[in-house]
């Protein structure tokens, strides 16, 4: 069984990544890193002893759609999704909606939401 982590280009993304690495180690399994940033993920400093697959995001303008599509692709294999959370302003939420809320409600695997 695999752990999947969504890593946006933000501090929460990095928090989620390190939590996911801990969780992967604990479960003694492998990790799929979904890089949601527009530039390639910096792999320096990632543990080399864990089986890690990095997936880049292409062609998906909506981050939640991108994560949900990846979950579909790994259906039956992934049993935990790790995401990072932060406080949002009402205006920010009104403009862009909440990525974590959509994932919490729509992902069909358990979600581990970590705070900074």
């Amino acid at each position, binding site marked *: 069984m695999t752990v999947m982590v969504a890593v946006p*280009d933000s501090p929460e993304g*990095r928090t989620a990544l390190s939590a996911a690495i801990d969780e992967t180690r604990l479960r003694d399994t492998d990790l799929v890193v979904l890089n949601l*940033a*527009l530039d390639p993920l*910096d792999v*320096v400093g990632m543990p080399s002893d864990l089986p890690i697959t990095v997936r880049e995001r*292409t062609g*998906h303008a909506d981050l939640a759609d991108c994560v949900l599509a990846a979950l579909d692709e790994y259906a039956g294999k992934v049993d935990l999704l790790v995401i990072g959370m932060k406080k949002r302003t009402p205006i920010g939420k009104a403009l862009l909606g909440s*990525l974590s809320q959509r994932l919490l409600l729509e992902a069909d695997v358990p979600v581990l939401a970590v705070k900074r």
Partner: protein
Amino acid sequence: MSHDTHDAVQTDTTPSTPGRHARRLTLLTVVATFGGLLFGYDTGVINGALPYMTDDLGLTPATEGVVTSSLLLGAALGAFLGGRVSDRRGRRTMILWLAVLFAVGTLICTFAPGVGVMVLGRVVLGLAVGGASVTVIAYLSEVSPAERRGRLVTQNELMIVSGQLLAFVCNAVIGGIWGEAGGVWRWMLVIATLPAVALWVGMLAMPESPRWLASRGRFGEALAVLQQVRDAKRAEAELAEVRALAEEDKAAQTAGWRDLAVPWIRRIVVVGLAIAVMQQITGVNSIMYYGTQILTRSGFDRDGALIANIANGVISVLATFVGIWLLGRVRRRPMLIVGQIGTFCALLLVGVFSLVLPEGVGRASVVLALTVTFLAFQQGAISPVTWLMLSEIFPLKLRGLGMGVCGLMLWIVNFLVGLLFPILVAAIGISATFFLFAGLGVCAMLVAKAIVPETKGRTLEQLEREFKHASGPAAETAEVTR
């Protein structure tokens, strides 16, 4: 749309040998650039037609502005929608429809009985102009071999200024011969149906873009098109490249609004927007749209102004050549800033001389010399740097969103300048209006000096690093936690 300096895909294909395929490609380029020519003609023709139209339709400064700028509002919409439609229906189909739209818009304007119908026609024309601005470039860069692709953006720009020159010449000829007859402006406008028909007939014989076909999974058809425009050996070799580029195009559409929450992404988009605003805020299009009226107000008679205005068109074409040549030789930042200094001085002097010289042929000649100088700096330095930089600063995954937003910004500022210029001239006078543009020019210069990066000879990765490093504390924590 352009992939000149940052083409991720390299092929070992050898350059085309001259022959049947090269001739076919040349013909295709000529046909498609009729789209650029129409763009230029339809934006430029208003320049000479407006003085006659003002009398016939009883235009006020405000309605003059509305008639001129409604085209630009349509163009903003056309550029925004054009990309989506041509992604869905294909480049060729889109250009065929654009040709029809050009003709229909022209006819509505030509037979317009009053301001209302005229504005409707101008909006329709604008949709065609905006759609052409994105689709023709996409089509040309997708059918051309890699070694010719880099020059296409600037070549299309050359066709646009040539179209404007053509419009200025037609205006002068028609105004000179039939100037006394009523409704002469209708004849000036209706000529634009000819290149529209030529574009439509020409495109019927042209193939669909191979890259678009590949993006739809129609690889057999894509190969068949490549065999028309490349020799047999190269066509096979390029199919792989075309497939890769179609994937790259998909990647270019990755970024969405949410990505603007990332500071370094936002910073690049802001620089792009600033470059777009700086190109239009010089007021270049006040001369391209209202040149004849500026010259009439300065002291030429109407026929004289129509003829003198041709100088504005000629210098635009010549300067665009010089600008393309310069881009290969000098760095972008100094070129932009020198252009801004040049346009600032010319604008300031137009203001000064309009104030101190009495109205007459003397003042009009000085103003003409200064608008020509202005256009030399604008079209020879600022505009070419703008087109190229906008295609260079965005990382691949941000390109679709970045170019889209900046394109929209260009049209909006263009619209505001077109709308407000006659109103400003009527309200505060011609010299104050030019002082205003000169003042905005100083602001643009300061912004350029502060935030525009040098893109010549640098990779996208180097640029990205620079944008990330400017971000302060957030970037530092990123370094630590990663």
